[in-house]
């Protein structure tokens, strides 16, 4: 299910004093199984972009093809689109509404036309994926859970549709360190199983670690499109776009400023560590 975004533009409230061009002629493609990070400061157009890709708002110009199909057309099979492209919004726990967790998770699959007899199995699988025990939780109210658990249930509700493409808007916002780590692990697992991931995040370290490609949005334009290594070595350009480097990149930058010859190619924790061990003559770690 490759995604092709072709010359997409979006204008808010055209023809009013509040007119604002949120996206300007954005084009890129995403192949099957990629893990794409989208970074950009607040108001750079990244949220608008994912809403257009998932056909939640219509673009003003250009088109989006998912597996060759333009789902913004009137006669397009919207249910198929919803099954294909899962969207996890920021703070997805605010979309829970059913009496029981199992019912809430089954809502998406049911609405997109999955046969009733498949629902239970899908619910179970989705809950296992996010690490929530089916038997313990299925009949509980989603409103009894802690914040972190609610988020897992909301994500399970999207996964139960078995999407080929998963779009996420800052899924780790508000989570504590272990919650952040376990969520990134989950996404990594899904990606390893072949799911295409499109993730908006400010978590540069997570993206440096897991993403295969990064799109940098700035003032409605696609400013960069490359591997984490290609993107994160552009220190100045990123800073100008209001973005930070991953922590490892910041360390490398600080060391280089002190005249220590460490390669700018190092953007991950382990890479920097190995290089430092080599430089400082410790015994290499396994």
């Amino acid at each position, binding site marked *: 299910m490759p995604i092709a975004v072709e010359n997409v533009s979006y204008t808010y409230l055209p023809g009013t004093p509040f007119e604002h061009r949120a996206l300007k002629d954005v084009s890129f493609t995403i192949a099957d199984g990629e893990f794409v990070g989208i970074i950009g*400061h607040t108001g750079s157009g990244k949220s608008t972009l994912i809403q257009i890709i998932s056909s939640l708002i219509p673009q003003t110009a250009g088109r989006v093809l998912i597996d060759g199909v333009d789902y913004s057309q009137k006669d397009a099979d919207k249910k198929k689109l919803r099954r294909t492209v899962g969207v996890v919004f920021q703070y997805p726990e605010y979309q829970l509404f059913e009496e029981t967790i199992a019912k809430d998770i089954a809502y998406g699959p049911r609405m997109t036309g999955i046969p009733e007899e498949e629902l239970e199995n899908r619910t179970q699988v989705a809950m296992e994926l996010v690490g929530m025990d089916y038997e313990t939780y299925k009949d509980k109210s989603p409103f009894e859970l802690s914040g972190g658990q609610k988020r897992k249930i909301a994500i399970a509700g999207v996964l139960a549709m078995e999407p080929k493409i998963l779009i996420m808007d800052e899924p780790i916002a508000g989570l504590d360190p272990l919650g952040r780590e376990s969520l990134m692990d989950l996404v990594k697992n899904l990606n390893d199983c072949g799911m295409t991931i499109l993730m908006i995040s400010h978590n540069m370290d997570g993206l440096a670690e897991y993403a295969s490609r990064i799109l940098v949005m700035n003032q409605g334009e696609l400013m960069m499109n490359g591997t984490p290594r290609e993107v994160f070595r552009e220190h100045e350009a990123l800073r100008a776009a209001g973005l930070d480097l991953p922590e490892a990149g910041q360390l490398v930058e600080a060391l280089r400023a*002190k005249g220590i010859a460490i390669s700018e190619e190092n953007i991950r*924790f382990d890479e920097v560590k190995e290089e430092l*061990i080599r430089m400082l003559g410790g015994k290499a770690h396994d």
Partner: protein
Amino acid sequence: MEDFVRTQGVTYSYTSEEGDVNFALNGVDITVKKGSFAVILGHNGSGKSTFAKLLNALSLPTGGKVWIDGMDTADAERTFEIRGSVGMVFQNPDNQLVATVVDEDVAFGPENLGVPQPEIVERVEQALTAVNMLKYKKRAPHMLSGGQKQRIAIAGALAMHPKMIVLDEATAMLDPRGRKKILEIVTRLNREEGITIVLITHFMEEAVDADQVIVLSDGQVLCQGTPHEILTDQAMLKKAGLLPPFAAQMAMELREAGIPIAQTCITTRELVEEICRLQ
């Protein structure tokens, strides 16, 4: 220096629907010195937000005592005095601004205190200047970014001329830039205005410049000490469901690999110095 906050054997319990008694806090003894910068770390559900509400008499402990500037929070006569001297900034930027215009929101606290009108105007100007938001004073709050809203919330607390400001996960919903800005502002208020700060967070890097770090876990104080002591104690942090900050983790793993890096590195700057020393 005298204590501004002192708690003794504080518990906070509630009864669940099934009738079980749960302890959100269980025997917390903490002191925070006047004019210091304290950070409370803890994973979600560790009891840190429950604790925050005790500091401004928004709720009272079910056991034990909380003294603020020598006043017992259970003393109903002094509730408003306590609330006036402890400003609170909460997590959700959208849910703590009352008015439809920024300056009127900042004026809300002083108005409640019955401050005379000309002085309110003065305080509002000062408070907005302190958070660098004066030029937004006639804006509607919903047009501002999350970080800007939190700055208005800080200004709202400042306008009450508090002696302490408690930030209850006030940075949790912000992007990295917004977070950094808030931290800069409270650090400045602490150093220049002498306002006592209690910052509750789960971002480890926000604790590196604190005078005192307290780790809460399951409603109890697991550990307290200086940032260097706390943030380098990996075993303890793990027990608390936390992770050391980047520099501390890196320093530790380098040491494990046999490189004699000082154990006390918690910031990138310190780590760089150490590496330069070894080169």
